[in-house]
């Protein structure tokens, strides 16, 4: 990866994080922690790796991204707006009555959203059907699906994981946003998911472990996944919940609440932006 690409991605990720904070602040509710932890992964996908056409969202040859951890909608919306799928002003009507952007992604109402998600595990399950359909049609497109660590506790995730390996879905790359926290606290305290790499390996997946905030590692892993034939890839991306905002980092409290005016100012300053 070139130095100037790296600088570009870092800048975009910082701006996406600012949009996450501002949109959730304006909404008065939402999920900042898991949106911020996924910001670098989503940036790498939309601004480096994936083939998409914002002016033609249903382009048949596009790559597809499914946000299975649908509560991190603000990160997806910020990326889609920046990419040009819809005007940026929509971000600041998030969660409002009659607005385009729902609390959780709605594929029928929002251009660029590939799957309606929010109920955990279901986006991942749908990615299996998409992967099978694209193979049936002999398309080269790839499917990327982002899951949360708490989401690993859903039974459907393992049903889908078994099926993806059984059907040798090498057009599917799953990314686990492993920030270690869920609503009630640490995964380890609520319901242990470890040893997570071994679980996916034993299910027949190609497993890669990376730092989910390091663009070189994210992109290297996405490229390795693309080269892997005969099985799907699970990228376990170690992340920090609330990444980029000091008081939100590693704080379970910030899973699902909006910052107030003062907190928003501090957060934006830390992210290198100014409140707009």
């Amino acid at each position, binding site marked *: 990866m070139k130095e100037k690409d790296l600088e570009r991605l870092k800048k975009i990720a910082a701006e996406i994080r600012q949009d996450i904070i501002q949109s959730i602040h304006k909404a008065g509710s939402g999920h900042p922690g898991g949106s911020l932890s996924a910001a670098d992964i989503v940036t790498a996908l939309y601004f480096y790796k994936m083939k998409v056409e914002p002016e033609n969202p249903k382009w048949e040859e596009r790559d597809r991204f499914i946000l299975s951890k649908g509560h991190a909608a603000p990160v997806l919306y910020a990326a889609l707006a920046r990419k040009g799928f819809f005007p940026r002003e929509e971000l600041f009507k998030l969660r409002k009555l009659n607005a385009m952007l729902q609390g959780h992604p709605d594929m029928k109402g929002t251009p660029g959203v590939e799957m*309606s998600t929010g109920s955990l595990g*279901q986006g991942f399950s*749908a990615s299996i059907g998409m992967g099978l359909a694209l193979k049936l049609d002999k398309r080269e497109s790839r499917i990327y699906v982002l899951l949360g660590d708490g989401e690993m506790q859903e039974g459907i995730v393992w049903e889908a994981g078994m*099926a993806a390996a059984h059907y040798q879905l090498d057009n599917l790359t799953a990314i686990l946003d492993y920030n270690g926290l869920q609503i009630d606290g640490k995964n380890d305290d609520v319901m242990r998911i470890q040893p997570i790499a071994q679980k996916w390996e034993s299910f027949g997946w190609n497993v890669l472990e990376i730092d989910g905030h390091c663009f070189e590692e994210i992109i290297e892993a996405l490229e390795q996944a693309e080269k892997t034939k005969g099985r799907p890839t699970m990228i376990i991306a170690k992340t920090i919940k609330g990444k980029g905002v000091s008081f939100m980092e590693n704080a379970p409290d910030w899973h699902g609440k909006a910052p107030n005016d003062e907190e928003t100012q501090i957060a934006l300053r830390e992210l290198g932006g100014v409140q707009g």
Partner: protein
Amino acid sequence: MEKVATRDAYGKTLVELGKTNENIVVLDADLSGSTKTISFKKEFPDRFFNMGIAEQNLIGTAVGFAAAGKIPFASTFAMFATGRAFEIIRNSVCYPKMNVKICATHAGITVGEDGASHQALEDIACMRAIPNMTIINPADSVSTREAVLQAARYQGPVYIRLGRAKVPVIYEPSSLQFEIGKGIQLEEGKDAAVIATGVMVAEALKAREILKEEGIEIKVIDIHTIKPIDEELILKAAQQTGAVVTAEEHNIIGGLGSAVAELLAEHCPTPMKRIGVKDTFGESGSGEELMKKYGLTAQDIVQAVKEVVKMK
């Protein structure tokens, strides 16, 4: 009278569809021999996907196929399709109005010997409560074929409720006028209207013969599409006869009887009786024995008609 199971008609129709439409894919959850999707698997192995004993992922995967432009038919027993996978149907199929066809077999008490754990008696109620869902409960093999063909052409979620047992063939393929959302009046009568669905349509026709001998004339209506229900036909029948009996192989709560009662209560209050399983679980036994024990026979309809006529 010739008897054919609706699931057999389903399996055959899938093959017919597969030949003309390349976008049809079929998914099953380890029950392809019972749901009859095995026929499609034999003809089109590349378009058949066994998802194993994992009904949530069966439906979730079907959603992904639909999102990529395919027309997925997902099959398992009604109990597991609508029960185990309920929330996937609610959130991933119906909320985004995905073009997924859920064709579930072994619905109702005529499952028989397998007992209560396998006898779905609340599936219509569950599916009816979800916006965007269309529910079809065909009465015989001939109308099943039409239901499946039309479901493939219809854009959006469809739940087709099929049975295990062989049931009388009541329609002629050449004269059947089947349209999703439109009921079929099979017989005319002035004293009461029997509004039936699924296997109970044949029982209603038998009841009509018994009642005729006693001088009571009933209309018999097949409501194959429970949602959206044919309001016009039902209201007309209620107005013309002034007495209504519904009949379904389902709990009396939440199914056809409830749908008709809701409609009549708001638009045309009419004396009515509901034939169905009376808010209880089933048990093992032959389908025929269970129909009798749980009050789902022509004789039960006859009794209900007599009572409701007195209420006029």
